[in-house]
């Protein structure tokens, strides 16, 4: 179906089903229960899960296939965001032009950065991309303030021109919409103690993510994707086989830059504001973590990694001391204090510590990421069949 093999179609359908039913899947605990803070089915977080999924899917086309580790992809996300917000200020609050321009501008910017950075490989390539991203970040904060809003960032104002939209009525604020359907529109379904939220913005982002995921499957299975894997495997042989590796890596760089721009545009569509911190190097590092954690070079890995990290960031960081006290209340006093002291550094602001430990465990024990973990578990159940899967060489993650 859709020009995919049976296996890939199944994967696409699984992802589609997960995306459609995410409001249920991410909200397993009833409202008001002790576990309710583990619910992730609220619009803001669900939107982030799929948008950063797109970011990681695109990053994986570069890193997973060619092995070129870019440390500056947040710059493309940021540039896409700025382009989108300017579209909303000048043209219309409709998200379509904003998203389109974010992809185009990020594509052009990544063409420039890639053209220069790809003159080197390995660590030097990574450093060059990092330098570009940090320059972009610093420029956005300082000399480019007229375009970027500097420290305050940008958001649509009531008195922006917006030449395609009619004038706002007094007291009305500009809201991102898709032909009148506002991104913030939600429908809440109450079943017993459960509340499920269906948000327009989330579903639009999810559809875009599914398209992006589908396109990445096509790229992975195409001759172009095979050449990118050949670049990673043996660039010397490729060059002595009459193939010019430069345009292949540059094309992969630009495609992944456009994915990042798309993610940046969608972030603006969902939450109409941009700040330069979006381009900071930690944001570039985060997408590297997502891809490796999920499984670089696999199709589904980056989506899993992005979901995992964004979930941790939002859920674990919200657990505070009083919640811990509730959890351990059943214990005798001394023991309760002891456990709270032990767990406390890993929650709230310490969520990075939890993430870091998990990242270390994955890299050491599962170099193929969460996908490899899944394959191992599936292998335990299916026994022999798993080794057949590994032999086809396509789903096996590269280190």
């Amino acid at each position: 179906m859709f020009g995919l093999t049976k296996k890939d179609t199944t994967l696409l359908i699984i992802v589609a089903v997960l995306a459609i039913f995410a409001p249920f899947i991410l909200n397993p605990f009833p409202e008001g229960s002790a576990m309710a803070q583990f619910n992730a089915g609220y619009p803001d977080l669900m939107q982030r899960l799929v948008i950063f999924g797109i970011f990681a899917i695109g990053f994986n086309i570069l890193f997973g296939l060619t092995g070129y580790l870019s440390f500056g992809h947040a710059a493309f996300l940021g540039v896409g965001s700025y382009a989108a917000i300017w579209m909303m200020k000048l043209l219309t609050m409709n998200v379509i032009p904003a998203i389109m321009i974010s992809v185009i501008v990020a594509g052009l910017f990544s063409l420039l950065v890639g053209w220069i950075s790809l003159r080197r490989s390995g660590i030097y390539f990574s450093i060059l991309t990092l330098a570009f991203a940090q320059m972009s970040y610093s420029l956005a904060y300082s000399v480019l303030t007229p375009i970027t809003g500097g420290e305050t960032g940008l958001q649509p104002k009531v008195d922006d021109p917006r030449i395609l939209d009619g004038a706002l009525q007094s007291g009305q604020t500009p809201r991102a919409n898709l032909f009148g359907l506002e991104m913030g529109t939600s429908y809440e379904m109450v079943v017993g103690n459960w509340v499920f939220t269906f948000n327009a913005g989330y579903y639009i982002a999810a559809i875009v993510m599914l398209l992006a995921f589908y396109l990445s499957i096509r790229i992975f299975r195409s001759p172009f994707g095979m050449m990118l894997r050949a670049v990673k495997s043996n660039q010397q042989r490729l060059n002595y086989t009459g193939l010019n590796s430069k345009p292949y890596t540059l094309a992969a760089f630009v495609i992944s830059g456009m994915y990042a721009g798309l993610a940046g545009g969608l972030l603006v569509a969902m939450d109409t504001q941009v700040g330069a911190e979006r381009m900071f190097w930690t944001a570039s590092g985060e997408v590297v973590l997502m891809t490796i954690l999920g499984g670089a070079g696999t199709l589904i890995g980056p989506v899993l990694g992005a979901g995992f990290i964004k979930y941790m960031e939002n859920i674990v960081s919200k657990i505070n001391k009083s919640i811990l006290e509730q959890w351990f209340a059943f214990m005798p006093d001394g023991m309760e204090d002891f456990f709270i002291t032990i767990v406390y550094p890993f929650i709230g602001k310490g969520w990075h510590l939890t993430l870091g430990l998990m990242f270390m465990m994955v890299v050491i024990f599962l170099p193929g990421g969460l996908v490899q973990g899944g394959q191992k578990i599936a292998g335990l159940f299916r026994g022999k069949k798993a080794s057949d899967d590994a032999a086809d060489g396509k789903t096996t993650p590269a280190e």
Partner: protein
Amino acid sequence: MGILEVKNVGKRFGGLQALGDVNLSVAENSVHAIIGPNGAGKSTLLNCLVGKLIPDTGSVSFDGQSVLGRKPYEINQMGISRVFQTPEIFGDLSVLENMMIPCFAKRDGAFELNGISSVSSQKDILERAEHMLEDMNMADKRHMTASSMSRGDKRRLEIGMCLSQEPRLLLLDEPTAGMARADTNNTIDLLKQISEERDITIAIIEHDMHVVFSLAERITVLAQGTPLVEDTPDNIKGHPKVREAYLGETQTAA
């Protein structure tokens, strides 16, 4: 006039004159071996032919066209394929994929942005790659990961990849280096078969005299960066200058 003409080529690395004044002419459809003791400049000469190094002086032309200043992939597209000393293959890819890549290079040129159609829909490429694997007696290994094969099989695959491009000149850099005797003999047989069955010129750099005398029609002896003598294998064997430069090795090997 040979298919490959090397004229007055010199290359210096700092204080070391790696190649002095090399003249070499490789006749079309022949097997030409370049031999010489360690440090004679064999590999430097080969690197000058494939675009890895640019000689300081002289000219290198293939089929009447200069190769100097061209990138390795451009020289390959002109019809020169290179086999490396240690087999250079795409280790992470399957054997079949390894064979498909040169077929794509032959059909689509140095770059083709084909990111939408699936590899399995490229029937002509698949057919060609499968056919080539059968020629190499490797059809049963098509789904193996290339890096998991034995060294002899890797060499066989690499030669097959080069042949699938239908090159006019095949350059081999010590193709049997580090191989067991059985693998060496298999490689010799394979190369013999290739030169008999195909319209192809083979230039081979080799240390192993057994390989050289089994294969070559012409031999150039290189010593200290300059050609000492060029002749048929029989004449080379008894040549006093060669014995002088090569003493010990000829006696044990021949």
